[in-house]
């Protein structure tokens, strides 16, 4: 796990920061896991739970729980890119986003200006959906499946 220093744009006190930093490293699989973490942080378990509720309620944290490796769950995934003409951008966005297999889609600053991830049950479905988008839009869908992952872990220091 490695650290990146963030310049916070919301106000946290020292305990909030300690909680954000500590809980990115992992959470114990034990009967009273908050006791374990609270002891490390020098606060009480109810105080920790209370802070955590607030961090989630204010949007400072987006999620607390298990992170699943989607591929280990058996699905197929593929990053795709298209060069969409500006005057057709909204219509093509609609066509692409209408597919439930499109998990997320970003406009990027490049000739290849639309980047989306296809998530399906099988690799065959990736081909079917990408071909379908090509037929519907007349625009080539470049496919960039993951060949190797160099995952270490990212941590934002609050």
């Amino acid at each position, binding site marked *: 796990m490695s*650290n990146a220093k963030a*310049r916070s744009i919301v106000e946290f006190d020292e305990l909030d920061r300690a909680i954000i930093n500590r809980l990115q490293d992992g959470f114990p699989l034990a*009967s009273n896991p908050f006791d374990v973490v609270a002891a490390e942080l020098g606060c009480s378990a109810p105080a920790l739970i209370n802070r955590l509720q607030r961090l989630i309620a204010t949007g400072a944290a987006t999620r607390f729980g298990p992170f699943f490796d989607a591929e280990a769950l*058996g699905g197929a995934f593929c990053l795709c890119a298209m060069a969409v003409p500006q005057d057709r951008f909204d219509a093509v966005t609609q066509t692409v986003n209408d597919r439930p297999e*499109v*998990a997320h889609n970003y406009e990027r600053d490049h000739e290849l200006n639309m980047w989306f*991830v296809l998530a399906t049950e099988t690799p065959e479905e990736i081909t079917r959906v990408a071909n379908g988008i090509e037929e519907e839009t007349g625009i080539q869908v470049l496919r960039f499946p993951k060949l190797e992952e160099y995952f270490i872990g990212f941590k934002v220091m609050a």
Partner: protein
Amino acid sequence: MTLLDPTNRELIAATEAGLPLDAQPYARIAEQIGLSEREVIEQLAALKARGIIRRIALAPNHYLLGMTANGMTVWDVDDTLVSDLGRRIGALPFVTHCYRRPRAMPVWPFNLFAMVHGSDRTEVEAKRQELSALLGPACRQSDVLYSKRILKKTGLRLSRNEG
């Protein structure tokens, strides 16, 4: 989904939105799906050992923490060196999602993708220079693609997930 038995699937369904913020979160999940707390802890530990659960943790909001700029840096790296260099880049503090992907010639000569986060584009550019220095002559050319807009973003789902 074939890799999971029904209990695993129930457990994943019960936890994918997050853990209950309760003093005994695993006991609360156990009540929901009719297992004992001990069974829930053991099953979660087994899923973690299999790599299906990467970790149990808090996901901070990068934007609210001030990390507002992100650039997808892409690199055309010598095929014989890319795995080793990719691992070194993936280990850097400001890099998430570092992958080797196929090129799409002639329009796309890049085979290494590294998402770089920073508080602004100047910071992302400085990090990009660091990556460039690390890759050295093994990298023939590079580019960076900044996101302009999120067009669609769906949450974590059992069958449809981020890749």
